[in-house]
């Protein structure tokens, strides 16, 4: 628990998200109203003009993400926020941002689906959509906050990662965290590290817009800075021009993946509780991890050797971290407010190391600490 101090303020999750975005340097937001993400748009409409940025309400979510990508190409750190149905519409442009390597942040406040679903009961049903929602092989980064403070912190990090890797970054948050109010100590600006996209160090005539400078991430000047280059959603060569040559197509896709996967060690973001001697480890994210922590504490009081790993990065999947958990536990419990999405990934990585148990709930209500405690007692060897 964070200590209560003078500087603590009461914030809603969506409000904290906006604060994080502005701290990270967000200067463009395009949106379309959708519960339970609308507050992000409404607060942006108030705050962005004050910060010298631009807010615009577009005609739909497809247009929102299009405008966000356009603004990012013009040099502005840009963001959109939505929920399930709007997230489905955005998939086309998420793919474009992956392919053309345009930094942008997309917040998806998950509500129960499919389709219009259960507006607006909580859910974690978009885990796989956030990974594979847009067509074709593509890398993606997805962060999952579980508290109001973390929503602020991970929104800052989402901007940093999107700038560092020139990739769309998704903040996948459930309705509970988005609408919950908690006391938050807003970090000072000097305590927040803000990253900017790499810029060319060569004159325009030497600039190769999609060449690999060694880091896997080509430098990206804004439109209008004298570096005239071509951006396309087609497979392209290092100059950005369309190509179908196999010796250019595959290296591009390989680079898109490797620019992120080479840094997997830097993306193992999690909190662990009581895991040292845990026989059963709970792997959870979002609001479920809050109930899980309570359940783990109760179980410890009853003498059960249980622990919790709370994931902050969902994709790329933290294989290294999870493998260790699977090796050191007899059983792993993956509770989710979906029919079993991340647990599939845990099972895939597990490869028989231990027993993976799931607890799934899709009735639009939370998984309670009592339900988790009961399950832990049930599976305790």
């Amino acid at each position, binding site marked *: 628990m964070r200590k209560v101090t003078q500087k603590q303020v009461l914030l809603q999750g969506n409000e904290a998200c906006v604060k994080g975005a502005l701290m990270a340097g967000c*200067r*463009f937001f*395009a949106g379309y109203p959708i519960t339970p993400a609308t507050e992000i748009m409404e607060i942006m409409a108030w705050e962005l*003009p*004050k910060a010298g940025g*631009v807010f*615009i309400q*577009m*005609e*739909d979510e*497809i*247009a*929102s*993400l*299009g*405008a*966000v*990508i*356009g*603004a*990012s*190409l*013009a*040099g*502005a750190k*840009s963001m959109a926020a939505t929920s399930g149905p709007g997230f489905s519409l955005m998939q*086309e*442009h998420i793919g*474009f941002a992956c392919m053309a390597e345009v930094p942008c942040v997309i917040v998806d406040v998950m509500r129960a689906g499919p389709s219009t679903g259960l507006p607006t009961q909580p859910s974690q049903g978009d885990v796989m959509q956030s990974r594979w929602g847009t067509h074709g092989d593509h890398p993606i980064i997805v962060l999952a906050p579980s508290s109001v403070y973390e929503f602020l912190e991970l929104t800052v990090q989402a901007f940093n990662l999107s700038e560092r890797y020139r990739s769309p970054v998704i903040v996948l948050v459930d309705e509970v965290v988005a609408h919950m109010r908690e006391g938050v100590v807003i970090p000072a600006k000097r305590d927040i590290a803000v990253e900017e996209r790499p810029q060319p160090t060569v004159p325009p005539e030497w600039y190769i817009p999609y060449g690999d400078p060694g880091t896997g991430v080509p430098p990206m000047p*804004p*439109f*209008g*800075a*004298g570096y*005239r*280059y*071509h*951006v*396309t*959603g*087609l497979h392209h060569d290092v*100059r950005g*021009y*369309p190509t179908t040559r196999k010796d250019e197509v595959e290296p591009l896709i390989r680079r898109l993946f490797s620019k992120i996967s080479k840094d997997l060690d830097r993306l193992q973001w999690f909190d662990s509780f009581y895991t040292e001697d845990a026989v059963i480890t709970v792997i959870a994210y979002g609001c479920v991890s809050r109930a899980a922590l309570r359940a783990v504490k109760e179980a410890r009081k009853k003498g059960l050797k249980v622990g919790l790993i709370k994931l902050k990065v969902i994709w790329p999947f933290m294989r290294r971290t999870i493998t260790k958990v699977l090796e050191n536990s007899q059983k792993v419990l993956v509770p989710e407010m979906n029919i079993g999405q991340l647990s599939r990934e845990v099972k895939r990585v597990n490869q028989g190391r231990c027993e993976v148990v799931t607890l799934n709930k899709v009735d639009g209500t939370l998984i309670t600490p009592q339900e988790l405690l009961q399950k832990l007692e049930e599976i305790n060897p």
Partner: protein
Amino acid sequence: MKETGHLIHKYLRSSKRFPHIWCPGCGIGIFVGALIRAIDELGYSKDDIVLVSGIGCSGRLPVYVDFNTLHTTHGRALTFATGIKLANPRLKVITVMGDGDAIAIGGNHLIHAARRNVEIATFILNNHIYGMTGGQCSPTTPSGLRTNSSPYGNLEPPFDICRLMEAAGAVFVGRSTVYHTRLLEQLIAKALQKKGFAITEVIFQCVTYSGRLLGLDSPVEMMKWQKENAIPVGKVGELEKGELEGKIVIGVMVDREAPTYHEEYERIVRERVKI
């Protein structure tokens, strides 16, 4: 006539592998030439121009020209253009789209861009057909025409792009064919200088598909068709009812003033936002 051959080297990308993707006899090249001549005449810096396109034959246009160029998704070019213009109003943002691109899949974005009045010079290259995918009917295909997706005849009436745009609030609406090259160049120049959302419909020939389906077998025949069926907007009043059937009205339909989105945004920030 002014010598403009040197513009090829000034505005076409030497690093791009030619030949281009368009069929022999396609009318897009005439538009590219007119666009480049108009831009050169107006003296814009290449660094300040952002050329945005959607998907289709017209979508491939930006890759050949030496501006900041962006080839977006099908129908959505105007959404990207909106973001670019608002993030950096100093840039001259130009969008080119095809008829299926702008009117069918992008129809929603088009009417809202016109209503919003973000300063984007928009050109809809209308060949009345989906060319790249192989000759399917589009929202501008004439009723009754047999196409590869209307083998028994097109059941739908075509959209009049200019009337649609006028109703949606575009501050500049013009139409030309690629046969009327001088007019086309004038319209492009006017559209580029217009403060606000300027739309120009450019009728051009797709010899490979609409030409064959219309029974016009060569680019020359198609351009003759453009010449013979065009009626200057000023002469429309002289015609009897029904005489406009199947004709192409060319010229400037709308030229009006309205505050642009980013001007209004700046004004509101100045007047109402307490920083």
